[in-house]
């Protein structure tokens, strides 16, 4: 397929996944607030930190109030990671490849965008956040489901899947990192009821609460981190995401697994091996934040390698095959 088209399909999927995760974090945080009165300011602060956008946020909004954070992360077109900014780019990408993705899928992307652009969207998000962010999440799922059921599972589909899973792996590490920021001000809270609520909320934001309960019962910090990083069968864990991304990457090139023919396969293969052979207990003891940081850097490296291998204009050179 055309390099330009592959790139658009890949980024379309990354942006949709990113928008979904912003909604997840916002939605759960909002619910958490109902349980924890009196924590308002601290509660919304990490939302901004998790995206790495603290400086521009402070400059333009000042205090991390609920309204400000929702505005910044949802509707602020000047914030490149806001839901609306993600959807605008996702839709532009989708529009540029609408002859490749199915009509049904394009229509869902378009509907999602139009939903965010409805005149009273802001009011609804602030006054009644739960159904609003629920809708965002469901729109993303609808796109994913429509894609799986209406698009041929060929090269474009694999590029979309690659984008989805690389982005999701990255987002899951960020969601875990929120907790790190949350814990900073009050390390005393560890193990207290409030801590339990926060870890549960964290699981919920990754749709992992029920699966976690079935597997481990009591909510314990180390166990939660391990679950979100290493639980093979859970579709939002980092391990699951990068393995799925790897399958699609190799489906695109035809290279057998455990071998590599280009830097994308090499970088992703190394990361998969690292996650596979990491002692989870050690990670939690040895400083979760640094570990998450390292994973994020490696995921960036994978993204760069994918761009170089498949999307960069190649004047005559054969890309990895």
């Amino acid at each position: 397929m055309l390099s330009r088209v592959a790139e658009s399909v890949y980024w379309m999927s990354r942006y949709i996944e990113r928008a979904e995760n912003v909604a997840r974090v916002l939605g759960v945080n909002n619910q958490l607030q109902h349980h924890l009165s009196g924590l308002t300011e601290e509660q919304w602060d990490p939302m901004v930190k998790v995206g790495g956008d603290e400086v521009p946020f402070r400059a333009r909004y000042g205090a991390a109030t609920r309204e400000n954070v929702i505005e910044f992360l949802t509707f602020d077109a000047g914030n490149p990671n806001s839901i609306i900014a993600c959807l605008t780019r996702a839709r532009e990408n989708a529009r540029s490849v609408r002859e490749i993705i199915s009509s049904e899928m394009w229509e869902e992307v378009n509907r999602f965008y139009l939903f965010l652009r409805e005149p009273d969207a802001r009011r609804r998000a602030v006054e009644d956040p739960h159904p609003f962010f629920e809708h965002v999440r469901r729109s993303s799922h609808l796109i994913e489901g429509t894609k799986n059921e209406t698009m041929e599972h060929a090269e474009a589909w694999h590029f979309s899947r690659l984008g989805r899973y690389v982005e999701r792996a990255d987002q899951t590490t960020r969601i875990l990192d929120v907790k790190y920021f949350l814990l900073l001000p009050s390390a005393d809270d560890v193990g207290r009821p409030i801590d339990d609520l926060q870890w549960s909320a964290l699981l919920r934001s990754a749709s992992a609460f029920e699966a976690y309960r079935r597997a481990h019962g009591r909510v314990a910090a180390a166990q939660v981190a391990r679950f979100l990083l290493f639980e093979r069968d859970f579709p939002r864990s980092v391990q699951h995401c990068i393995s799925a991304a790897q399958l699609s990457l190799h489906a695109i090139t035809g290279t057998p697994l455990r071998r590599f023919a280009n830097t994308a396969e090499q970088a992703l293969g190394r990361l998969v091996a690292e996650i596979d052979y990491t002692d989870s207990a050690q990670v939690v003891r040895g400083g979760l934040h640094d570990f998450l940081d390292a994973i994020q850097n490696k995921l960036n490296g994978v993204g760069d390698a994918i761009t170089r291998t498949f999307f960069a204009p190649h004047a005559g050179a054969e890309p990895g095959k």
Partner: protein
Amino acid sequence: MTFNGYDTGGFYDEMFLPDGTPRPEARLLVDRINGLPEGEVLRRHQAAERALLNTGITFAVYGDDQGAERIFPFDIVPRIIPGAAWDPIERGLRQRVEALNRFVDDVYNDRNILRDGVVPADLVESSAGYRPECVGLRPPRGIWCHITGTDLVRDRDGTIYVLEDNLRCPSGVSYVLENRGVMTETFPVVFEGLGVRPVADYPSRLLSMLEYVAPAAMKRPVVAVLTPGMFNSAYFEHSFLAQQMGIQLVEGRDLVVADDRLQMRTTSGFEQVDVLYRRIDDNFLDPTCFRSDSMLGVPGLMDLYRRGRVALVNAPGTGVADDKVVYAYVPKMIRYYLDQDPILPNVPTFLCWHDKDRRHVLDHLAELVVKPANESGGYGMLIGPASTAAERRRFAGLIEAEPRNYIAQPTLALSRVPTRVEDRFEGRHVDLRPYILYGGEIYVLPGGLTRVALEKGSLVVNSSQGGGSKDTWVLSC
């Protein structure tokens, strides 16, 4: 919402006779709409618009710095043409396209029509669409005008005239297909009762034509649609047609000339392209041949084309017959090349470069429609009866300065079709753009795009100027 009290206003109405009774072919639809419960027309109309918005059938408006996209306004009342009335139109269009194709080929090769003085050579060579780079070109199978959109209008007395021919990249056919899809959902019962000729096979016919003109006989030539990109006002159509034909939609940056072939950059290297349905203007096709500042085209494309390594649809240079001054000579071309009388008449046209015509035009500006020879989209026109004295003075100046570039025609009382205006139906003026494909045979899409001037009394139907569209139903008999 019913047609009771609908006023044809002294115009030719496509749906009602002057005495207010429905034309026979429209009776079933009129009864159906009149029988709908109160509010139902509006509800269906909104459902139809919502469907168009969700599918993103929108166009960008140039000069709108919001970058806003709008849906092409759609009206729920179709235009109905009985089969017997359509058949001569179809024959007339075939005849016209055949003559136009002969003309373009002649202009760039043998020049017989110029030498015989039927069409003045300096007129042809001064046309904005004339491409000296195309002299001596022999496109595959001798076809230049593969896709033509010819605009037709009906005057007060019912006569159908050809208003202009669009032989470069006529757009709008995607709206025909989408409008039909929406209408079959909106009035399914009426549809089944009437026997409307189908339009849904247009993409298949387009693809067959594109494959037919591949440079060398091959089993499955690779065909692609070339678009300027998603910010073009017709981008929706480009991607829609590529999707419906199951072929690649490419931009200039996806293409490169390598190994003496046109190639696409793919994730697994280069892939050859044999036929390019290009939706960008001649001038932007190849910076080494036409405009050197073009970022949209492919360097070296014209050279490949000239040597028969790739086919371009439409061929470069067809714009010469798009010129509204050249248009005036089409009836003569039909006689010259085909030795036939034209089936469809032209609108009487004054050519401002003739002294006598120009004097007449300048004396009658308030009655005439003045058009620049090489604009499209309804831009740069003067509609005399609706103009101010200042506008007429400005046009008189423009005509004096560049007589070659202006024509004038009598202001026709374009026919009308009932159109929903808030909670009632009112007559609005329409035109019709049928699409003609020239491949192994000449095919005319039944009906085409009916464009409607939504503003009361307006004669300008272009989408960029407040126009909308209607489905066009050509009946089987």
